[in-house]
């Protein structure tokens, strides 16, 4: 009988349209995905997977990563199959037939379950098929794919998808059997999906990776644990091994799935359906109709329609709000939101304060899933209620207008959304209060959630109602709706970049305490109007096409209804308004402002390079002095500037022509040299101008360039300028003219370069390249400049830029500021203008000033402390600070970074000003401050040549310097935590390298190298040779290279300053010149108490050293290295306990396994090999062990 039921179920499913819809959608999804990855749409960057351009796009690793994400879809397909599997027996009363036959419950449940799950698997295979077929498409860039191997497609199925189908299916079946309602199956789907998302966010943070890998039901954590530190080479060649943690995870969770299934069957009772008939009993009571009953006269008209509307609205609202799953989903949604809110804005594991915009934004980020599920569920319920309960025929025959039917549903669903958003706002307020934050800003909640988010959901609801009207199957409609919104991001990857073409998409509005709703608000409003007109059209077609009775969709009927009473005129008017609004938007985004799709920008960059790169090495004069006059108009968001550059011919030859580049975004450009010249090339498309001189500029001769231009804001655009703001303007020197060809505009991606037939290009020149040595890495057109600026702004704002404030005055309702730098600086500066509060202190004769938004005074003392401690350490270690003033200035959170310019550190409001620093958390406002202050030495005094390793000099030493300041400020545990963070960032970074990993001294701008590994190896070196020894070397280096003229210095020159004993020479080579990885771990350790009260620790230590090439191919290296071994005891205090080193020695290790016996005086609790990460350990979590 099992077989018969199994095939009956298969046969039934195969006759359902929804099965094919699911299959086709997944097939298309797989097909599109590979096409996008394979460059069919020539999108600029595809960041669907991490792994870089060197990872084959159909390797087992990539396929598994993609399919793991697609398993999100499967939850809804499984939910749809499971809920209809048994509910249709209820709806069709088929259970009378089934349960009177000699069918065992095992057969009844398991045969149908496995038939459905088999189909889910087959539907998933359709995606695999789509991916597989796509590879053979002629337009696919084949070199990024390996020869397809069946195993690479099947292992994701066997390792991830099939076990997950069994698990999810069993859980959902259990839920259905307990609740007997399909709504609860969707609630459970949401729970599972939430668990999946939480898992992705949180499990990665659990330090105990063994536990993390086993408790994750979907195997994601175990999978990433197995592949986490794979090199590019491994990602390309290795199949996903079903071993270790991944194997155990799968066994555990498939086992749990099967147990749940068995329990479902055991608990299942064949009388199960007929027992739930309390309502039926009630309904079966006969209603006696009085004999004198007279049907009241019915008046048709607006009043009747309004009354009908309210009656149906009340009915619908009752249906929604009496539904228990709604509250379950809301509670689950709130729990999920709280988790997101807690994590939102977290940096270095340190949370932000629950300021209102942060909480509101986290709510907005966390609710889409819930909102879509609720929209799907309740739109389905309202649309299909009458059909499910078989009274649709009666209802459709009543004299009720389609519009009343429709509006009652839509209004009920909008009220539902208002209820949900209000609930979330209340939850947000409770969360803020719980964390002791009481500066509530209800208007921020309302504007962000109701103003910015809600229109999106209303339009989505309108689409959902339309889909349910068009597709005659509830579950298929559910899936199609969810699929549309999940697949929508792919439209951009397919080349539909313009927001006008992406349904229900608007420019992103980012709230900032400094600049409120920002510059995208106008664009947002217009786009919302535009999509609203389309939504009205959808409403029109949904209403006019409403099926009454058993009719199927028919164009004839649709056209007939459109013609009735000239209904079509309404549609035409709305269509006209839709097109008109679209036209106005287009005028703003494409005519008033320049719109460039990523593809066009890419093409333009290629054309620019082809046209002008021949001038890349052309000798040009260098800027030596910058004098600016800038007028900022925050209200209109305009800037007018004029200025003068002094240029000097620093070459040995005369210069006949000067090339000037001016950003295309500036207008009314004027360029004038103070000697006779002729404009020979004027390329307005690229802002490239070539001036030829009658008399060439002789060596050392000076020339002045006067310039003027304006930056005018007009209408609204898609790439809204976020630098010129009503409050919080922050512009860089890139807005001003530059001299010579600038290769920063060239395309870097090897794959894209190939697409445009551009020659290979490395991000940085070779370390001994003469052209690279002739300029510094920050500025191609200047060495060191003097700088002076007079800048005006509106009367309530303050202007900040590099230099001393010489004078400040007001005139004509505007504020003027005259700044002049004492000394010289690199040619990179910025101008900020905002309403500021300020905290000032004088420290070591240096004016320290912190300018901040008046509400953001939470961490100013920490930053001030950071500046003072940094100045103290750096002046002592590297030499004097060269200026009189050092300022920190807050800017709006459109950028999340801080940067260091001469005397000025712009600092984003999102990375420190609202950090919630607790005792055991990384004080990153302090840390970032220490980093940026260090740049005042490492960039603003010593700068590397524009060759490989430039950023090691700029960023690695800077971060090392900051680490040293932090070491004095942070506890040992916190400092170690920071080192571990850097190490894991390096290891993860090298796994997704898109080019080749370089050794530290040849870093090519790879952040994971210069920020993370670079800082770590400098720190490690300082611990091996002594902090003072290294700092003295750096001090001498600064003294020699300070404000150096070309040729600029390199990392190789730096190493000549470091005196290192012969015994440690290998360390310098391994750390900086090679890619060296250690695998050091404590295999076993025990302690015994000796008679004299001392303790002996016996440990087995495993050590290994590997050298890696740029692709991650490793080979074992001979080990003869000094590695630190530390034994700790545990001491108490400060509200907890901490580990204290009681034994610390550098021991020479030569063997793979070493047995050690160490005697210590107090009770040891832990032993570690290189516990403070002075070496690069590729398995960083096994280097310490608690003692038994």
């Amino acid at each position, binding site marked *: 009988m099992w077989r018969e039921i199994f095939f009956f179920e298969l046969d039934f499913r195969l006759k359902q349209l929804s099965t094919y819809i699911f299959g086709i959608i997944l097939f298309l999804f797989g097909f599109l995905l590979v096409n996008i990855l394979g460059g069919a749409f020539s999108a600029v960057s595809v960041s669907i997977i991490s792994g870089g351009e060197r990872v084959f796009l159909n390797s087992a690793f990539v396929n598994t990563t993609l399919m793991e994400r697609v398993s999100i879809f499967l939850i809804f397909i499984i939910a749809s199959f499971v809920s209809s599997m048994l509910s249709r027996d209820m709806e069709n009363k088929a259970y009378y037939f089934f349960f009177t036959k000699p069918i065992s419950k095992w057969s009844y449940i398991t045969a149908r379950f496995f038939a459905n799950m088999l189909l889910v698997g087959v539907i998933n295979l359709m995606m695999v098929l789509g991916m597989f077929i796509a590879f053979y498409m002629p337009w696919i860039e084949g070199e990024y794919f390996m020869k397809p191997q069946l195993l690479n497609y099947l292992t994701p199925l066997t390792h991830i998808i099939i076990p997950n189908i069994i698990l999810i299916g069993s859980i959902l079946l259990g839920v259905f059997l307990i609740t007997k309602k399909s709504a609860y199956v969707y609630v459970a789907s949401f729970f599972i999906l939430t668990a999946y998302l939480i898992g992705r966010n949180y499990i990665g943070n659990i330090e105990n990776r063994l536990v993390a890998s086993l408790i994750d039901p979907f195997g994601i954590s175990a999978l990433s644990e197995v592949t986490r530190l794979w090199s590019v080479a491994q990602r390309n060649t290795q199949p996903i091994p079903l071993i270790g943690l991944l194997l155990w995870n799968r066994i555990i969770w498939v086992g749990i799935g099967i147990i749940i299934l068995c329990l479902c069957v055991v608990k299942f009772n064949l009388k199960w359906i007929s027992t739930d008939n309390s309502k039926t009993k009630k309904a079966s009571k006969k209603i006696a109709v009085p004999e004198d009953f007279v049907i009241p006269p019915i008046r048709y008209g607006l009043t009747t329609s309004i009354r009908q509307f309210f009656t149906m609205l009340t009915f619908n609202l009752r249906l929604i709000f009496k539904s228990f799953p709604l509250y379950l989903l809301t509670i689950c949604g709130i729990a999920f939101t709280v988790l997101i809110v807690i994590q939102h804005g977290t940096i270095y594991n340190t949370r932000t304060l629950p300021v209102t915009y942060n909480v509101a934004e986290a709510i907005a980020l966390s609710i889409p899933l819930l909102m879509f599920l609720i929209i799907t569920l309740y739109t389905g319920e309202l649309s299909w209620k009458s059909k499910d309960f078989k009274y649709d025929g009666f209802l459709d025959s009543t004299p009720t207008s389609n519009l009343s039917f429709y509006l009652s549903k839509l209004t009920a669903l909008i009220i539902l959304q208002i209820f949900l958003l209000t609930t979330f706002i209340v939850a947000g307020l409770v969360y803020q209060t719980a964390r002791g934050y009481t500066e509530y800003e209800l208007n921020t909640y309302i504007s962000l959630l109701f103003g910015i988010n809600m229109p999106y959901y209303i339009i989505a609801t309108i689409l959902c109602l339309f889909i349910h009207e068009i597709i005659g199957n509830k579950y298929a409609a559910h899936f199609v709706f969810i699929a549309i919104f999940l697949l929508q991001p792919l439209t951009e990857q397919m080349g539909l970049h313009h927001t006008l073409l992406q349904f229900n998409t608007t420019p992103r509005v980012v709230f900032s305490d400094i600049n409120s709703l920002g510059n995208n608000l106008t664009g947002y409003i217009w786009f919302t109007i535009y999509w609203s007109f389309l939504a009205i059209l959808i409403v029109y077609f949904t209403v006019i096409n409403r099926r009454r009775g058993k009719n199927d969709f028919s164009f004839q009927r649709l056209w007939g209804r459109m013609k009735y009473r000239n209904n079509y005129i309404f549609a035409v008017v709305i269509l006209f308004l839709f097109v008109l609004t679209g036209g106005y938007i287009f005028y703003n985004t494409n005519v008033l402002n320049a719109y460039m799709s990523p593809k066009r920008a890419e093409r333009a960059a290629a054309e620019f390079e082809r046209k002008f790169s021949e001038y890349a090495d052309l000798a040009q004069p260098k800027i030596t002095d910058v004098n600016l006059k800038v007028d900022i108009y925050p209200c209109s968001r305009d800037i007018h500037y004029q200025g003068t550059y002094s240029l000097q011919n620093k070459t040995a030859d005369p210069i006949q022509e000067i090339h000037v580049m001016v950003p295309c975004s500036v207008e009314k450009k004027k360029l004038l040299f103070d000697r006779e010249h002729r404009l020979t090339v004027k390329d307005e498309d690229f802002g490239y101008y070539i001036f030829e001189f009658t008399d060439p500029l002789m060596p050392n001769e000076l020339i002045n360039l006067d310039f003027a231009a304006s930056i005018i804001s007009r209408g609204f655009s898609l790439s809204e300028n976020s630098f010129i703001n009503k409050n919080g303007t922050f512009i860089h020197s890139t807005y001003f003219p530059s001299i010579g060809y600038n290769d920063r505009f060239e395309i870097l991606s090897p794959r894209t370069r190939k697409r445009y037939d551009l020659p290979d290009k490395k991000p940085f020149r070779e370390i001994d390249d003469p052209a690279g040595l002739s300029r510094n890495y920050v500025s191609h057109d200047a060495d060191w400049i003097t700088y002076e600026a007079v800048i005006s702004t509106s009367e309530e704002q303050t202007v900040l830029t590099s230099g001393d404030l010489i004078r400040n005055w007001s005139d004509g309702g505007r504020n003027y500021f005259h700044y002049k730098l004492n000394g010289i600086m690199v040619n990179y500066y910025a101008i900020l203008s905002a309403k500021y509060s300020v905290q000032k202190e004088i420290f070591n004769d240096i004016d320290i000033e912190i300018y901040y938004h008046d509400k953001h005074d939470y961490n100013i003392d920490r930053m001030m402390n950071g500046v003072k401690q940094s100045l103290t350490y750096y002046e002592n270690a590297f030499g004097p600070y060269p200026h009189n003033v050092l300022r920190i200035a807050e800017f709006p959170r459109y950028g999340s970074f801080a940067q260091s310019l001469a005397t000025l550190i712009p600092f984003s409001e999102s990375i420190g000003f609202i950090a919630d620093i607790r005792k055991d958390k990384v004080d990153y406002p302090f840390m970032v401050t220490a980093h940026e202050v260090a740049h005042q030495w490492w960039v603003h005094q010593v700068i590397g040549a524009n060759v490989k390793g430039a950023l090691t000099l700029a960023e690695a030493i800077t971060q090392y310097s900051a680490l040293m300041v932090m070491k004095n400020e942070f506890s040992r545990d916190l400092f170690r935590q920071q080192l571990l963070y850097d190490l894991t960032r390096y290891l993860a970074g090298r796994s997704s390298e898109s080019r080749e990993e370089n050794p530290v001294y040849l870093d090519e701008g790879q952040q994971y190298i210069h920020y993370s590994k670079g800082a770590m190896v400098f720190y490690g070196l300082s611990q091996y040779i002594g902090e003072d020894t290294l700092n003295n070397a750096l001090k001498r280096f600064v003294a020699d290279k300070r404000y150096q003229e070309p040729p600029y210095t390199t990392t190789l020159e730096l190493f000549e300053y470091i005196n290192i004993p012969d015994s440690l020479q290998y360390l310098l080579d391994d750390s900086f010149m090679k890619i060296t990885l250690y695998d050091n771990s404590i295999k076993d350790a025990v302690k015994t108490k000796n008679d004299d009260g001392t303790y002996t620790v016996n440990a087995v230590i495993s050590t290994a050293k590997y050298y890696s090439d740029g692709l991650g191919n490793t080979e074992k290296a001979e080990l003869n290295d000094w590695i630190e071994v530390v034994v700790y005891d545990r*001491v108490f205090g400060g*509200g907890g306990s901490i580990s204290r080193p009681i034994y610390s020695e550098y021991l020479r290790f030569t063997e793979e396994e070493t047995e050690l016996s160490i005697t210590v005086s107090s*009770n040891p609790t832990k032993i570690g090999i290189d516990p403070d990460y002075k070496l690069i350990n590729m398995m960083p979590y096994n280097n310490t062990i608690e003692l038994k």
Partner: protein
Amino acid sequence: MKKIMTVISMLAMIVVLSAEQSLWEKAMEIAAENWNWIPRLTTTTSETKNLKSQELEGSTELVVKHNLYEGIIINELVTSSINGQEESLEEASKRYIEILQRDNTPTRSGMFFHVPGEEFTLKNNGKDKQISGFDCIGFDFSYRDEESKKKSSGTVWLDKKSGAPILKEFSPDKNPRFVTGIDMIMHYHYNPDNGEWYAKTVDSNVHISAMGRKMISNTTVSYSEHWRYHN
């Protein structure tokens, strides 16, 4: 004449009140100057007696060392004994874990950092006493601790000359469960020559009534080898 007397008495009251005020201000200044003293050693001895039979129920002695390690004041167990028997440090560490984990970082908190007001009342009780060679004047107080939110009241004795608190006798307003009364006396060390001031000993008598038995526990906590914590 009556009027003159009234004026004189009012003036006298003002003088007395302002003298009290200035004495307390001096006490606060001394506390502010000496907020960061940490004892190197804390010795706690405790004896519990049955009130009815006057028999010794038990005694403990605990010595804890306080050192600075990476900015944290760590608490290390030196010795521990129960009823005269020394116990292993491992065992004692488990038993006294809460005491050991305690955050002993000095803060500028406590009644000596407050001006009398709503949560803290202070009144001269008109009594004089010589304590440890200092001529002291007594002030009755009632104080609610900011952190623990617990209220206590008693008498604090200030050196008439310098205002330095020399002794504090006090009891909590609310007793813990099974405790019927607590009396505490805190002795302070004060050196007028260099201004050093810190807590020296705390004697406490705790009356316990549980399961029909009445007991008294006498505890003395002595602080020694003081050093300054620099924040």
